[in-house]
Each structure stands twice: as structure tokens, then as C-alpha cells.
């Protein structure tokens, strides 16, 4: 297969950046989107040009490193997968494909398609944990947790922290990411004692990082590779309200 790739090139955080067109040829339909970029980059290097920088690691949809805006869609046209899982057979032979980094004030571009998502880490540091020390925990079966609850917590905990929800949102809101963590921990009995501080601190940090508010358009849910449900945003809102009331 052959493609015309319009890729965002930006030398560093201060550079203005621009789109540059490349042609990618002889791509196997079974190749992943990132493997297509590998092939193109290999050619660029051979020609002495700088390859297109992008973040990636596991290449199986779990580490959350990869994240590209492909034809205006976070992680590309297919639902429920990350960029690294996207296969070239999902595109029409000969088509042109626009590739951009996540665009959000809280995710500044480092180079080309690589952005800085450490704002997510700072939100987690503000309260995305249960305060237990190593050692001295009670037996794992001491507190039974209904299967339905633990499954729902797992649904939320499946978030890979990729940032597609932010990139997809017109307000660059991080509510789905934050909602997933708050929800995961609030659902479990172990997480209950700190639920008030947790939600307050995480929301405060989220605001400080410059993420926008949520206007319920649900673009986040539609683009989330792990199909995290907006139900968790609703729970986040309830938890926040509850924290303000108590």
C-alpha cells in the first residue's frame, strides 16, 4: 500500500512547527501505524533527514506512550484501540493521512509528535493513591468486595494515561482521566477513607495544570482506547460535590 503522509514537524518547544508531506510506499496492510512510521523513518535516515519523532514503547496498547492525532481523530479512525494497535489495512490505499501531536495547553510539544504529559503525573501525585505503607497490610481476603464493584473499579483502572481524552475534547478537559482514577479508588472500600481529600486535590491540580472544564460532549469516551465510560465523570462530579458538602 502507498500513502501520502502529512506529518507535523516541530524542532522543539519554541519552534513554530509546520506540516511536511512525505510518501510512504510498499507498506504491508498488516503493518501497524507505527511500523509504517518506522519504514518511513528508516528511509528518511538513509537520505540524511531527521526522522519523525514519536513516543511509543509497548506497541500493544497498554503503556499509553503512543498517541497521535490521525486525520483529526485521536488514535485514528478505529474505536477502542491505541495508535500502536491501528493497522494500515484500516486506510484506503493511496489516501493521504494527516498526523499531528496531541494539541492541548497542558501537553506542550517537545518535538514533532512527542508531547509532555507530565501534567497527568502531577495530578496523580496530588492524590491518585491510597495511603498505605509497605508491610503490615491485612490479609488480601480480609475485605470481600462484590464482584460487580471490583469489575467496575477494574473498568476504570484500565485507563492507560494516554491523553486521548484531552486531545479529543474541544476544552482540553482531563475529566475522563481524573474521573477514571477517582472512580476506581472511590468504588473500593480501601479507597474510601481518603475520598474527600483525593478528589479535591486531584481537581485542584487538574485546574492548575490548565486543563479545561467538561461541557458533556463525550468526545473523550468516543476516542478513549480503553473505552472508559463517561459514567466515571459523573461519579467524579458526585464525589466532588460530596467533598464540598462534607
Amino acid at each position, binding site marked *: 500500500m502507498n500513502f501520502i503522509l502529512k506529518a507535523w514537524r516541530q524542532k522543539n518547544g519554541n519552534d513554530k512547527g509546520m506540516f511536511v508531506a512525505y510518501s510512504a510506499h510498499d507498506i*504491508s496492510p*498488516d*503493518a*501497524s501505524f*507505527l*511500523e509504517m512510521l518506522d*519504514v518511513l523513518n*528508516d528511509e*528518511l*535516515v*538513509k537520505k*540524511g533527514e531527521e*526522522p519523525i519523532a514519536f*513516543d*511509543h*514503547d*509497548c*506497541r500493544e*496498547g*497498554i*503503556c499509553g*506512550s503512543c498517541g497521535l492525532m490521525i486525520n483529526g481523530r485521536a488514535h485514528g479512525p478505529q474505536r*477502542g484501540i491505541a495508535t500502536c*494497535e491501528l*493497522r494500515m*489495512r484500516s486506510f484506503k490505499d493511496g489516501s493521504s493521512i494527516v498526523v499531528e501531536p496531541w494539541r492541548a495547553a497542558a501537553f506542550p510539544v*517537545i*518535538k514533532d509528535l512527542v508531547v*509532555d*504529559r*507530565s501534567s*497527568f*503525573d502531577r495530578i*496523580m*501525585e*496530588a492524590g*491518585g*493513591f*491510597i495511603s*498505605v505503607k*509497605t*508491610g503490615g*497490610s*491485612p490479609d*488480601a*481476603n480480609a475485605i*470481600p468486595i462484590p*464482584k460487580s464493584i*471490583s*469489575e467496575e*473499579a*477494574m473498568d476504570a*483502572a*484500565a485507563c*492507560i*494515561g494516554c491523553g486521548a481524552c484531552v486531545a479529543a475534547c474541544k476544552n482540553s478537559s482531563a475529566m475522563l482521566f481524573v474521573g477514571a482514577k477517582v472512580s*476506581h*479508588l472511590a468504588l*473500593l472500600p*480501601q479507597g474510601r477513607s481518603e475520598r474527600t481529600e483525593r478528589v479535591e486535590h486531584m481537581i485542584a491540580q487538574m485546574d492548575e495544570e490548565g486543563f479545561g472544564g467538561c461541557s458533556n460532549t463525550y468526545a473523550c469516551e468516543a476516542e478513549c482506547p480503553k473505552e472508559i465510560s463517561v459514567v466515571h465523570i459523573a461519579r467524579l462530579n458526585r464525589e466532588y460535590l460530596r467533598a464540598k458538602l462534607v
Partner: protein
Amino acid sequence: MTLDSKIPEGPIEKKWDNHRFNLKLVNPANKRKYHIIVVGTGLAGSSAAASLAELGYNITSLCYHESPRRAHSIAAQGGINAPKNYTNDGDSIYRLFYDTVKGGDYRAREANVYRLAQVSGSIIDQCVAQGVPFAREYGGLLDNRSFGGAQVSRTFYARGQTGQQLLLGAYSALCRQINAGTVKFYDRREMLDLVVVDGQARGIIARNLVDGTLEVYPADAVVLATGGYGNTFFLSTMAKASNATAAWRAYKRGAFFANPCFTQIHPTCIPVSGNYQSKLTLMSESLRNDGRIWVPKKKNDTRRAKDIPENERDYYLERLYPSFGNLVPRDVASRRAKEMCDNGYGVGSTGQAVYLDFANAIERNGKEWIKEKYGNLFDIYHEITAEDPYKTPMRIYPAVHYTMGGIWVDYNLMSTVPGLYVLGEANFSDHGANRLGASALMQGLADGYFIIPYTIGDYLASTTFKPVKTDDAAFKDAQADVQKKIEQLISIKGNRTVDDIHRQLGKITWDYVGMARNREGLKRALEEIPKLREEFWQDVKIVGSVESLNNELEKAGRVADFIELGELLAQDALHREESCGGHFREEYQTEEGEAKRDDNNFCNVSAWEFAGEGKKPNLHREQLTFEYVKPSQRSYK
């Protein structure tokens, strides 16, 4: 130098308790004064950094990823072992110990393995307290499943994302400490050298991957938790960036490298499909609980799976190993799959695959049941191959997956460089010649949560530290070395890309040092790898600058080290004239084609000491003794 494993005295079940009592303690008020660097934020690194910080030490944590949560541990699928015996099927600490020693083909230290089994129960308690959503039964208690090489159900899991959930647990503990100011975390930093002052590990040199500056981090002790070296083979199930540079730098600064030839080939991976392929995807071994492995009975059978009637299928693992069946250990399952394909029974367009079939399980328990257990794995498979495993059997083939070898450490997890500790997959310790499923997560977290917090204190309390400054000669020299190497790399301006050379290294190592090895092939590898090394240093092409984010430069440094490590791997495989676990030498096999150990000559750890560039490394042997689990021919029949 003789290797002292520092195994404590006493009966095996008392060793760790006695040892902990005998270890010196650091006065709580003094802990803050000790500065420890933890390199790596996978399960081993995150758990260690968080636990040490909770104790009061002053911790610096760094990794080359953009966030601690991206570490390769995140990709582990199947589960984590602990002998909780919640299923009442006869499990115990002793049984897990026994299984691990036997599974490792009697090439691990009994005392280490026993301790691992002892602390593993606390890991599950710890993780549940952190909010890790392990799978549960309807009554609300934790669910267990059985995993390769074990006849009891002792594996805890969180769907097919156990590593993710455990790492997010350890990451949350780390976040809490970062927030408390006890850990200073640096992202996108790659350790490129270890700094040794007066024989003690006193810091590291790291490159800031965003702007290219070389940074110097002094400390009183250094902990490496930098993962395994499976990417020496280019194609593996490891994350793309996983590499051996930190360990290799440590080796060159005096840390011995143990058993590099003990590499694990995982039986159930999606087969290679083209030369654009950048990595191989694991289909968790847990699938072997419900999937049945088979090939057609007829050679070169081109019929589709569903057109091959039941009586023309060879469920070869069930046939060869009636008691373990599809659950034989990884090394056995991998080798048998290779054998089937080499003999012409392979399936798929390349003939390099066998079937993993779920039809019976779906018939027995329904599609929903399978979906709940393995849904995400089935989705991954479907996504990659465009085939629906609910309808047609998966095609699988073995791939490089894990490295049992690593930096030699004593019972305290300290390497041969005083003050340098090595945890997780980066060390060689507990799995012998073959690792059982669901025990790497266990080992990484055992090392980080429950072992290093005790043992490092003893070193700190009993050592005198002379103050070091970043402009001391040792730091400046190390920094200059790193600088020189980077400049040399970028100025070669040859013709071959880094990946191109890496692929070639992968081919050499897979062909000659892969699933089956022999003297002739290993000698070939030992001729070809040095040639490739020379070619690399003359002909590699790296574009871009040193002073910015430059993936090609990063990869080049890693590949330079993989090439050297690949050579050591082949050397180790050549010297070990026996077959054991993942190390299968064709010259040494039983009549039935099983690995034939030589306990008289090789019941030892082989630890290699760097002897200088271009010199043959020195071999040191640590003799292994088995007082409890007497070595026997492993049998899974």
C-alpha cells in the same frame, strides 16, 4: 575474587528471619542523610523507591520513560503467583519453592527462592491494600487460576492486565512519596554510566533525553531496576525501548554478569509475518489453561483448521506429557513447537506456527465466559491478524520473552560492586535456567517491597562514606567517557541505520543462540558478532543532533551494548556444555529429546567479569548446593 553469596545459616525456613534479625539497622533520624538512586520505575524500581522513601531515605528515582507508569512491567498480562492456598488445593510456601527450583532446572539458589516464596503472600496483601482490582469470585473473595508449570491454582490476576494494575499500584505508592517530597523523580533520563569511587558505587551519569545534557547524580548507594536484555534478539515481546545499557555499563565498571545464556522463549506469541515487523506480541500463557495446542497429523497440510477433522489433529503436548498436558513449562512447550514446525507440521502461510484452539472451552463454558477471562487478548489477536479467535484457532509461535540471566547479586541483592544493588529482571537471581509463569512480577515486587528495604540498611549502617562531589575526578572521568562515546557515534556518519544493524544482530542471535544451540552455531555467532560490532562502529548512520531529543542516537547507544552483550551470551552458551531449562544444547539431550543437565560439571552460576575492551572476560563460578529439592530429571509426563 571468590563469589560470596552470603546465604545465611540455619534451616531454610528460618534463614530470612535470622538474617533480618542480624542485619544492622540505620537509626531513623539518620536515614534522611543517606541518598539512594533508584534507576528504573518498573515493578522492581517503583516498589523499591516508594518503600525506601517511606522508611525515610532520601531517594532519587529516574527512568528513560516520560512517566514511571510507562515501564515495561505495564505489559505483563497473565498474573502473579502467591501460595495463599485460597483454593485449598494443597499449595504452600514449600510447594511454590519446590516448583520454582524444579522449574528453573536446578540452577537457582535454594535460599533465594525460598525467601521469594515466603514473602510473596505479603505482596498480594500489599497490592490489595493499594487498591489493585484483582479478579474476584462472586462471593467477593479473590480468584485464582493455574499457570504454566504448576498443578495448583495460585495465580492472582486482573483480567489480562495484571502487570498494568500492579505497576499502577506501585506507581501510586511512588506518586505519594513524590508528593511528600521524599522522592525526587526525573523523567526522560537515561543512565549511561555508573560512577565508582574507591570501589564503591557512588552515583551515575544520565543523559537528559530532551535536551541532551549529561547530568551527574551522586549518592551513597545505587539501585538498578532496569529490566531484561531480551531485545538483544531485536524481535521479542519486550517493549521497544527495553535495553541492557544500565546493566552493561555496570558490568564494565566491575559488576559480574551471571548466566547470560539463560534466556526464555515464550511458547505463545503471535508469529512473525513480515520484515517490517518491529516486535512480537505475547498471547498470555494463561491461554494454555483453556486452549489446546495442536498441529495436523499430516505433514505440510494446507487445509484450514476447521477442515481438519478431530482424528487428524495431533494434540502433541497432551500426547507427550499426559499429566501436565498443555501446561508444561515454557521451555518445553517452546521447544516442542519448534520441533513440530521444523519437522513440517507447522501451520499458516509460513509454516512457522501451531494452533492454540479454544473451541472446546467455548463449547464447555460459553463465549461470554471466555470473553470475561481473555477478552482483551482475543481483541489484540484479532486486531493484529484480522482473524477472529472465537471462530478459528489462534496461530502461535515461540518468541524471546524474558531473560533469567543478569547482574550477579548476593542474597542481599548486592552486586560485586559494593553499594550497587540490582533488582527485578535485571538481576540473575531466582529463576535459574527457566522462569515459571507469573513469577517475574512476584520477584520484582518481592525485591522492591520486601527485600531491598532491609538489606540496603545493613550496608549503609556498616559502611563509612567519604563525601563525594560532582566535580570529583571519578564523576568527571565517567562523564567525559560518556561524552566521548556519544560524539564518536554521531560522527561515524556511515550508511546503515541502527535498526538495520540491530535486525542483523537479532538474526544471528536467534539463529545460533536462540531456542536450540550447538557448538558449531555458537562458534559461528562468535565470529559474526565481533564482525558486526566492527561494522557498527564504522558504518552506522545517525542523523540529528546531540543537543536535542534524538531517538536514533538513543537506539545506537543501546545497540552498541546489545552487540557486546550478544557476544557474551554466545560465549556463555558455548561454555555451558549441558542443556538446562531455556538453555538447550542439541549435543546434550535425552533420548526423548529433553534437556540433559550435567550436575557434576555445571551445577553452578557462571558469572563473567569484564577484563577490558577486546579481552576475554574472566569466568567465576558460584557452586550451587541443593539440600532440600534434590536435582532430578524434570518430568512433566
